[in-house]
């Protein structure tokens, strides 16, 4: 099986410890999300997986073999910082990048044509990259990543700079690749995308693992402690509850509030406080916290165990 295994990997740059004993496994047919604040060690980790750099300690294997020139041929990497040869024509560029990945010239040409058609972009082939818009360049780069039908795909912020229609197209293709049993690593800051796409999560901060598991398990471990309310009338009850340290408000607009239950507070207590004070109640929902909240809590060093359960 084409499983990617990162085994207690450490990377130092001089005195700086960029990645500190990180381990995870990425299964084929699943999308593995790597999250982390800037400078957390995401890019350093990805560069070791793509064999651009090598770990100081630990090992990385793909399909049972240590990563190296051979695994590079079987992986496609879309870096966060995009780049293409500006003076080169799109078609030539795709063929060249495909050849670098070990395709023959005709294979690369066929694949480039097929994917440009899929993106409705056949006419771009003879254009220079610098003549294309940023979004178009983004798509060309995406095609370059998947052109050689790699087993392992690494997407770093693949949707940035794309309009919603093209983002949806990319998402469809990524999901198709998952169905086709590819091993997919997805790095992003955009929590709603991670929530939508990823099966598994790995949260890294300061080079260390902070959270790790399937999306469902991670969310479950944080419990159902987040309330979403829609109502009409005064919202002074929220201030009262917050003063008593019963809740912490995350977002609040007229007639809408989202907050976390603190300590021993139950949803029922909140509801009882609210009901006499609002004119009408349209929605009262107890949920798992959104990933963005988990992200912030986890990075700030609060593990699920130390968090107050709902």
């Amino acid at each position, binding site marked *: 099986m084409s499983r990617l295994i990162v085994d207690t990997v450490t990377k130092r740059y001089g005195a700086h410890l960029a990645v500190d004993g990180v381990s995870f496994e990425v299964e084929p047919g699943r999308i593995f999300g790597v999250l982390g604040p800037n400078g957390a060690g995401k890019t350093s980790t990805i*560069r070791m997986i793509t064999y*651009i750099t*090598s770990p100081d300690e630990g090992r990385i294997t793909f399909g049972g073999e240590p990563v190296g*020139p051979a695994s590079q041929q079987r992986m496609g990497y879309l870096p966060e910082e995009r780049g293409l040869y500006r*003076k080169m024509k799109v078609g030539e560029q795709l063929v060249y990048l495909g050849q*670098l990945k070990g395709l023959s010239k005709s294979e690369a040409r066929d694949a480039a044509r097929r994917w440009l058609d899929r993106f409705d972009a056949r006419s771009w082939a003879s254009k220079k990259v610098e003549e294309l818009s940023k979004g178009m360049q983004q798509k060309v780069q995406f095609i370059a990543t998947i052109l050689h039908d790699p087993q392992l795909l690494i997407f770093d912020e693949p949707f940035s700079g794309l309009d919603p229609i093209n983002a949806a197209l990319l998402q469809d293709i990524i999901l198709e690749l998952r169905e086709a049993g590819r091993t997919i690593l997805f790095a992003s800051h955009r929590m709603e995308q991670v929530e939508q796409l990823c099966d598994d999560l790995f949260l890294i901060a300061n080079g260390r693992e902070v959270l790790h598991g399937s999306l469902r398990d991670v969310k479950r471990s944080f419990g159902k402690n987040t309330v979403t309310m829609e109502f009409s009338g005064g919202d002074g009850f929220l201030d009262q509850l917050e003063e008593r340290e019963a809740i912490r408000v995350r977002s609040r607009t007229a007639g809408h509030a989202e907050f976390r239950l603190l300590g021993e507070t139950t949803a029922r207590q909140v509801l009882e406080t609210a009901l006499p004070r609002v004119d009408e109640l349209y929605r009262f929902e107890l949920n798992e916290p959104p990933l963005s909240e988990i992200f912030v809590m986890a990075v700030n060093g609060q593990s699920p165990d130390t968090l107050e359960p709902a």
Partner: protein
Amino acid sequence: MNKIPLIARSEYLRRVRTKTFIIATVLAPVMLLALIAVSVGVGVLTQEGGARTVTIIDETEAGLGDALAERLPDNYSAMVEAAPLDSLRARVERGVLDGYFVLPAGLLDGEEEAAFYSEGVGGFSSQMRLQRAVEDVVRRARLRATGASDDVLQAAEAGVPMRMVALTEEGEAEDTSWVYSGIGYAMGFIIYIAMFVYGAMVMRGVIEEKTNRIVEVVASSAKPFQLMMGKVLGIGAVGLTQFVLWVVLALAGLFVAGTVLGTMVDPTTLAGTEGAEMQELPFDPSNFSLADIPFDLIAYFLLFFLGGYLLYGSLFAAVGSAVEQESDAQSLQAPILIPVILPALFLPFIADNPDAPASVVLSLIPFFSPILMVVRAAATDVPFWQMALALGLLAAAFIATIWLASRIYRVGILMYGKKASFKDLARWVRYA
């Protein structure tokens, strides 16, 4: 699979197809030709090859006027007249006459001086020719006045030919070192320019990949060493292409120019005007053609051209990898530029003294040899062991710099933000 040829090919095609390359390749010789044409044109104009009419006022008793009329260059038609000076002057002003000589009575005794009056004093070479004509005529008359016979006159006027002979293993040969040191000079200069131009091209290519952020994509497909070597070789091929095209254009240009000149210029005027100066050269350049450049010199030139380019090209790549903008590269470039510039300063000395011990030592140093050894090889017979040693040292230096440069390159291409210092570069080399 080795990706270096694939990368080199792409680097090559990407550059050769650009408009800038085509324009630069075509325009450079055109500009050069234009420059030559202008300087030749200026030369022709100042030669005053056109017919000129002059008058000679002869006040000498020996009748020097007629002798001078005969001795003047072919394009001068001279008449000995006894017209008043102011009427001659008026004729010059009206443009009927180009000028007039005055040969005063005391000229032969050296008491008075000859003079030539014209609207423009004329170029330096035409002044020289007129002066020489007058001198010849006066000297002959003075000799004759002492009662010298025709034999004496002939002996005094006969040219003094001298030739330089080099003793070689094959026997005696026309010593052409004068021309060869010129060729060596030119070859050394070409290598010097090429290292700058194509080295800078390598550096720009690396910086471009870095600022375009494509480097991470290609670095996940090939080893940094392959990327660097592919780029250096690809651009080297661009340089060779440009070079070959220029040589072809130059030969074609020479052929065409030769034919055109041959039909346009009367050989007798050429001989009349330039022949005198040429006799003073130890060697006649018109007997020399490109085909006379020995094959081994061309081979050495190409070897050192390639060796020097590879040596410096990889260093330029390393510098390029450490910066994000060309302007940031200046301080890091210094240690590369100095060893290129130094030998250019030694060039004149080496060309003049190709066998001096200092020349031998300097031309063996790997960072200097691409320029200096070629100059020596052209100017003298470099012993085989020296050539072999220089090439061996160059190859060793090349392997060392490639190793060093690829280590810097590997780390540098992924570094963004901070401007790198030499300390950083040294640290990168040590990274595992």
